[in-house]
C-alpha cells in the first residue's frame, strides 16, 4: 500500500495524541459505530480525566462505555447515559459531571464545530431547566431561542468501513450515525477502519467523509465486545 499523504499508520503511532485531561470526541450510537481498537488503546494507556463528547455513554463493556466504567472521564457531554449504569452511578457520587444535550441538538452542535460555525439557535427544550441551564437566550422575530454553542475536541475518533489513502471514508449502514459529524469536529481526527483501500478505489459519489477532515487512518482489530443482544 502506498501512503502518499502519510495518513495511514498504526495504533501505536497515534497514541501520543491521547493525554490526561484532554477533550475527546467519539463517533457511535449505543456503541454501534464506535472504534474498538482506539478505545482499547486509550484504556490501556491509562489516559484519564477525559472530557468525553458523544451521543451516549454506550454500555459498560461496549463502545466508550469501557472508558466510563473505568472512571477515566471527569465530564461527559451526551444525550443519554441510561444504557451504562456506571455513568449514572458516578454522576450521583459526584465523580462524573454530565451535560445533557437533546440528541439532535447535540448532533448539530458537533456539526457546527465541524464546519466552523460558533453556535446555532434552537427551540428544543427551551422550557426545560436542565437543557436551558447556563445557556444564553436570543429573541428572533419575537420568539425566544437557546443559543447552543458549537462543540469541538482536541481529538475525534471515528469508526468507518473503508478508508482510502487520502482518508476518504465510507461507513456501513447505521454505523454511520454520528461518525461523519464527529470526523469534522476534531482538531485532529483519527479514523479506525475495517479496510484500507488504494486511492481511487472508492466510488467518488459515495464518499461520505472527505479525507480533508481525516488526519490519521488506522486499521481496526475488529469489535472485541459482546453486543447487548448477543
Amino acid at each position, binding site marked *: 500500500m502506498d501512503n502518499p499523504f502519510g495518513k495511514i499508520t498504526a495504533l501505536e503511532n497515534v497514541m501520543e495524541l491521547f493525554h490526561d485531561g484532554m477533550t475527546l470526541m467519539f463517533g457511535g*450510537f*449505543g*456503541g*454501534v*459505530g464506535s472504534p474498538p481498537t482506539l478505545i482499547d488503546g486509550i484504556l490501556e494507556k491509562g489516559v484519564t480525566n477525559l472530557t468525553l463528547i458523544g*451521543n*451516549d455513554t454506550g*454500555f459498560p463493556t*461496549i463502545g466508550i462505555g469501557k472508558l466510563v466504567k473505568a472512571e477515566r472521564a471527569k465530564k461527559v457531554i*451526551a*444525550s*443519554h*447515559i*441510561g*444504557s451504562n449504569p456506571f455513568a*449514572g452511578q458516578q*454522576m*450521583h457520587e459526584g465523580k462524573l459531571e*454530565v451535560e*445533557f444535550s*437533546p*440528541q*439532535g*441538538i447535540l*448532533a*448539530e452542535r*458537533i*456539526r457546527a464545530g465541524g464546519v466552523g460555525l460558533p453556535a446555532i439557535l434552537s*427551540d*428544543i*427544550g427551551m*422550557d*426545560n*431547566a*436542565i*437543557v436551558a441551564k447556563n445557556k444564553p437566550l436570543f429573541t428572533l422575530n419575537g420568539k425566544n431561542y437557546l443559543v447552543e454553542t458549537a462543540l469541538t475536541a482536541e481529538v475525534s475518533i471515528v469508526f468507518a*468501513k473503508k478508508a482510502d489513502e487520502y482518508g476518504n471514508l465510507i*461507513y*456501513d*449502514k*447505521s*454505523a*454511520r*450515525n*454520528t*461518525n*461523519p*459529524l464527529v470526523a469534522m469536529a476534531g482538531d485532529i481526527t483519527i479514523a479506525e477502519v475495517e479496510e484500507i483501500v488504494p486511492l481511487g478505489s472508492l466510488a467518488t459519489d459515495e464518499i*461520505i467523509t472527505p479525507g480533508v477532515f481525516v488526519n490519521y487512518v488506522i486499521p481496526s482489530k475488529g*469489535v472485541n465486545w459482546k*453486543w*447487548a*443482544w*448477543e
Partner: protein
Amino acid sequence: MGMGVDIRNQMARRASEEIQNGMVVNLGIGIPSLVPNHLSKETKVMFHAENGITGMGPSPNKGEEDENLCNAGGFPVTLTCGGSYTDSAIAFGMIRRGKVDITILGSLQVSQNGDLANWIVPGKKVPGMGGAMELAQKAKKVIVVMNHSDKNGSPKIVPVCTLPLTSSKCVDLIITEMAVFKVTEDGLLLTELFAPYCLENVVTKTGCEFNISENIRRIPY
C-alpha cells in the same frame, strides 16, 4: 409491568390505526415497537430511527443480526425496501422540519393538557432525554402508549406532571390498557374503552377530570 402480551398488542394495534399510507413514523421502545406487527402489508410506512435509519424493518432472524444495522437502542433491525441511511444530524433534521408524521412513545406521566414527562426521575433514574424532546416537540402527532397506572397503582394521567417535563402541551393521543383519550383544547376527551373496562374503572384510575365523547367506541378484547 405484568401486562400480558395480548393487552400490549391490543394497545399497539390501536396505535397502528393512526398510521396511514406513506407516513414517516418513529417508534419508542417497548409497546410501540409492537406496532408494525399490526399494520397491513398494503400500508407503506417508513419507520424512522434517531441514529439515521429511514425505513427500519423488523428484527432479523436469530443468527442473521448485523452489528452495523441496529436501532436507536442498539438492537439489530433490518432495512425495508426503499430505506436509507443518513447521519444523526439529518435524522433529527427530519424531525425538526416536521417530516415525522407520528411518534409513538411510552411515558411516565401525561398531564391533562398534554404535557409529557418521560425522561427523568430526579434522584433515581437519570437516563437523559435522548431524542425524546425533539420528537415530542416536533413530530406532527405525538401518541403516548402506556399503562394507566404506575407500579404503585398511582395514576399516570395527572392534572399536572410532578416529574420534570420532556415537553409541554405536545401529546395528541393517549392509549392505555383501559382507554383512549384525545388531548383537546378543553382537556382530555375519552373516546374509547377497551373491554372489559367500563367508564367507572377509568374514572377511578385517572388522576384528573376528563370529558367523555358522545360516541364512545368500545373495543372488544
